[in-house]
């Protein structure tokens, strides 16, 4: 019932809410739990046994009162601030996901000298002391207001107000409320979940020092029927009385093994309740006299051994006697909240006096203070209280998991000796409350069952309390999930209706369908334009690295399989790189810009990796080489103008043209500085126009305009792939997969015999040098209209298709070719070069395609077209 006065609730602001469709009222300042308790509302029935359950605790340790509020499942009612119109549904330990979370959850980094975790008495004292020194102080507390357990003790509220005001006066002190420090990671990095209207914020704090003032959680007592509604933690009863002005019962039995529950007894008496204290300790507490003088009864050497009532408790057994009651306030002692200390790598020690695990050695820069450090009343440990009938199956250790002492005994009976085994066998500690009230009791029960001396040990892992997925995800959603990199010409592609593909983080035009056109039609059209007229592609995504220094040529010689030191200035050469394992790593064209200056291009996806690779070898192996690398990937927009008419187009715009294939000139195009190279990835006459990124769009548009009379056609990555495949040029990452050497690709010519390079030694290992490795070949389907799927596996024609079927290789690239008027493919095929002219089969789910093995060059094998 709600007391007529007192508490920290705002009685001028009544709030209406529903639980399971029934309307109730509460006040601002209530939690959903305190308002439920004021209205005698039960929690949901238990998960397996369907037993009625009530609210047990007043904080995050609550094992029973889980509710669904709107779309949010699995909130402990004790942590839900009451607001007007809340519609709550009680749950039986299992929530329901139905709708996406549209809350706004963001993140921020923060730094401080001292992070104080917990705004109770100890935390406030630490924060004030640190604040007075001028240090940068962070104080985080999970409650809506500071005070911690002080909020349950009205005689401290004046001091609380003073301290909170002083904290507010420190310019470098920041107080976060509704903020739970849930993770303590390496190097004093802590995560805080802050509840905010409509969502929350994840704080990542790097702290100089951390003060853990996280308080303690009370332990229940383990007796028969200890889960009956009306059995509550004594400290929680006190919180409901004093903070929320809710008295959970009027005839109370307080059952304890320590002095802390006497304060609850006294407060209950003051509220007008009848109180019987059953203190398990034989020696009477010094506080007993206070209780008696306030009108209560105290019995030493007595404990509750069972309960009756349905659903609420109506009486308890005290050994052979029975006492009527409607509230049982229990205290089995307190567990310091050592979770963060433990997460930080700190060790724990079992303290006999308090029968609790307390911080022992800190590993990082943290200190525990107050009750979190074990400053607690001594207790008489009492892990289990036998029932009169000897049964153990209603002695609940973990209420949310419906796990009892009987379950623990079954586990130890099965041979389990480790607490971890028992927990897994019984599922104790794995529910939403993370076993906060169950954990240490379980260890005590196991120790008793095994006849071991002391319980333990245990460790804690993040998070301290459950954290919404949405909070950890933060704003990295939708377009912000991962940067979408775009070129300077991107807006043009979008306007032109391009379809895009993701290549690494880049968005690249895939093809440019005309209205009503299929992808196949579009690609055939684009290919035809590049082969017969002129096509144009945005190649800006290629990685570009300038290498400057007198040893640049020597360095490139060591990195690439082929040689670059003697490359004439003004010319370019295709190169290939291997990993130390001898497998193809990347490829690209290298230009020699000056005697001491090269420009290396990389594949789109590998740009960063190649630069890292260069720097790694330069810095760690060959620091004596005088070379410096600078990424210029985005300095240049790159426009590939391709096809027999490309010279007409580029010639109309460029002041100068490169004299021959694999040469380049620094000139102007459309009036802006440009580097124009005769490089071809298609086998056609082609020009690669490089201009500063900010000129990219204008020059692209100029190229389009100049090419209009020739029907210039923009093409995407798909057409690029077809054109290069017709020429048998491999794509690293498509025709290779990390298991392919340059020799496997049939590119013996690119592997220098005279110089050393990274990976060379690997090429003559027994397996790598085997003649029957998979080698790159061409395939022509026997039916020229049949398109081999990329990824089709290849077998010899007479192979029975009973698994496991011996496979020869797979199709790496496969297209329809406008130039060939048929389909074709590239494949990696075992002993492929010995199979030229033979037929292989590609058995698919529904049919088998036969194809003839060919050289991988299908188009213009003489290379006559590259010169126009």
């Amino acid at each position, binding site marked *: 019932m709600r007391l007529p006065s007192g508490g920290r609730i705002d009685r001028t602001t009544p709030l209406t809410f529903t639980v399971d469709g029934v309307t109730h009222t509460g006040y601002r300042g209530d939690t959903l739990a305190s308002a439920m308790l004021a209205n005698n509302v039960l929690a949901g029935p238990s998960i397996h046994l369907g037993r009625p359950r009530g609210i047990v605790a007043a904080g995050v340790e609550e094992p029973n009162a889980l509710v669904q509020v709107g779309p949010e499942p699995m909130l402990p009612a004790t942590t839900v601030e009451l607001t007007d119109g809340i519609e709550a549904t009680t749950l039986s330990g299992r929530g329901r996901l139905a709708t996406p979370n549209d809350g706004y959850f963001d993140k921020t*980094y923060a730094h401080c000298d001292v992070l104080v975790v917990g705004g109770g008495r100890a935390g406030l004292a630490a924060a004030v002391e640190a604040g007075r020194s001028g240090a940068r102080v962070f104080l985080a507390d999970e409650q809506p207001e500071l005070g911690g357990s002080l909020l349950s003790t009205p005689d401290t509220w004046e001091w609380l107000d003073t301290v909170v005001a002083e904290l507010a006066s420190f310019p470098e002190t920041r107080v976060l409320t509704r903020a739970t420090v849930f993770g303590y990671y390496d190097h004093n990095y802590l995560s805080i979940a802050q509840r905010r209207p409509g969502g929350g914020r994840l704080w990542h704090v790097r702290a100089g020092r951390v003060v853990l003032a996280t308080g303690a959680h009370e332990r229940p007592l383990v007796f028969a029927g200890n889960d009956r509604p009306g059995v509550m933690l004594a400290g929680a009863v006190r919180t409901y009385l004093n903070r929320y002005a809710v008295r959970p019962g009027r005839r109370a039995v307080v059952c304890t093994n320590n002095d802390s529950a006497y304060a609850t007894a006294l407060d209950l008496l003051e509220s007008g309740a009848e109180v019987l204290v059953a203190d398990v300790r034989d020696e009477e507490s010094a506080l007993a006299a206070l209780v008696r003088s306030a009108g209560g009864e105290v019995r030493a050497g007595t404990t509750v051994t069972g309960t009756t009532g349905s659903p609420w408790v109506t009486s308890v057994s005290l050994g052979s006697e029975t006492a009527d009651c409607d509230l049982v306030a229990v205290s089995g002692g307190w567990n310091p909240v050592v979770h963060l200390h433990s997460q930080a790598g700190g060790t724990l020690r079992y303290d006999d006096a308090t029968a609790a695990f307390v911080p022992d050695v800190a590993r990082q820069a943290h200190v525990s203070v107050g009750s979190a450090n074990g400053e607690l009343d001594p207790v008489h440990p009492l892990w289990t209280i036998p029932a009169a009938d000897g049964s153990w199956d209603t002695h609940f250790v973990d209420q949310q998991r419906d796990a009892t002492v009987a379950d623990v005994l079954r586990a130890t009976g099965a041979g389990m000796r480790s607490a971890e085994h028992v927990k897994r066998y019984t599922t104790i500690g794995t529910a939403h409350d993370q076993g906060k009230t169950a954990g240490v009791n379980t260890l005590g029960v196991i120790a008793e069952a095994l006849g071991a001396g002391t319980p333990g040990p245990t460790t804690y892992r993040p998070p301290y309390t459950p954290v919404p997925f949405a909070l950890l995800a933060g704003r990295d959603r939708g377009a912000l999930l991962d*940067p979408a990199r*775009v070129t300077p010409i991107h807006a043009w592609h979008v306007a032109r209706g391009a379809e895009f593909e993701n290549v690494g983080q880049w968005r690249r035009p895939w093809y440019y369908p005309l209205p009503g056109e299929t992808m196949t039609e579009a690609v055939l059209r684009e290919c035809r334009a590049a082969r017969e007229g002129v096509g144009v592609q945005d190649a800006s995504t290629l990685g570009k690295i300038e290498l400057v220094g007198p040893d640049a040529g020597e360095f490139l010689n060591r990195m690439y399989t082929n040689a670059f030191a003697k490359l004439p200035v003004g010319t370019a050469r295709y190169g290939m790189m291997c990993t130390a394992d001898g497998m193809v790593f990347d490829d690209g064209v290298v230009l020699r810009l000056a005697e001491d200056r090269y420009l290396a291009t990389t594949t789109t996806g590998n740009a960063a990796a190649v630069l890292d690779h260069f720097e790694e070898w330069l810095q760690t192996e060959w620091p004596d080489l005088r070379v410096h690398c*600078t*990424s210029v990937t985005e*300095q240049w927009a790159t426009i590939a103008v391709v096809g027999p008419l490309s010279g007409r187009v580029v010639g109309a715009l460029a002041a100068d043209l490169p004299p021959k294939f694999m040469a380049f000139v620094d000139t102007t195009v459309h009036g802006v500085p440009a580097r124009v190279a005769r490089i071809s990835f298609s086998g056609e006459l082609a020009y690669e126009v490089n201009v500063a990124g*900010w000129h990219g769009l204008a020059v692209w548009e100029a190229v389009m305009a100049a090419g209009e009379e020739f029907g210039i056609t923009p093409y995407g990555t798909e057409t690029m792939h077809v054109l290069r495949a017709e020429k048998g040029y491999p794509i690293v990452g498509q025709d290779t997969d990390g298991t392919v050497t340059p020799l496997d690709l049939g590119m013996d010519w690119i592997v220098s015999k005279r110089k050393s390079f990274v990976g060379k030694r690997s090429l003559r290992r027994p397996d790598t040098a085997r003649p029957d490795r998979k080698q790159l070949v061409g395939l022509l389907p026997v039916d020229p209209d049949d398109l081999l799927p990329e990824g089709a596996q290849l077998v010899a024609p007479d192979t029975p298709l009973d698994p496991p079927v011996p496979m020869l290789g797979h199709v790496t690239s496969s297209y329809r070719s406008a130039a060939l008027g048929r389909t074709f493919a590239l494949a990696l095929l075992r002993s492929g070069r010995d199979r030229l002219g033979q037929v292989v089969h590609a058995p698919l789910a529904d049919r088998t395609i036969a194809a003839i093995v060919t050289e991988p060059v299908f188009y213009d094998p003489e290379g006559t077209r590259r010169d126009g």
Partner: protein
Amino acid sequence: MTDDLMRSPLAGVTFTAPFVRELPFLAMVNLRVGTFPHPLPGPNRVGTLDGRDVLWLGPDEWLVVGPPGDAPAIETLLHQALGDTHGSVVDVSANRTTLAVSGPHARDTLAKGCPLDLHPSVFGPGHCAQTLLARAQVVLRQVDADPTYHVLVRGSFAPYLAEWLADATREFW
């Protein structure tokens, strides 16, 4: 000096937060050198060289920043200073664009994505760092005590970063 054929990576982007804007086309020249005849700023600091800002990028790497169109002059200056000394001078002006984030919300905005401690006692005017802002690599420098920060970001990442900033600043306007 710019011409009307130039288009910045964020041309066409409207910044909803009034304290974020693009400073396009700044000249930037990358210098990598062992020994240099003129004093260059030390780690995480910005210095000057003949009227240009010089940002420390690494133990042998600096970024010389000047007004739009200044890159050829900077290159000439650096080459002359180097003489026969081996060093790498590369124009990277178009590699990045610059975002200015300024005013009372600047620090809290950047803190949402930048793991550096930007407290005035740690990072102030004249400081610079290569770091991360959200999921983009940036060069960050504080220009004045307002505070105004300059965020130098690769052109391809600029639209992402602009979108991120629009989101990060939405509580401030």
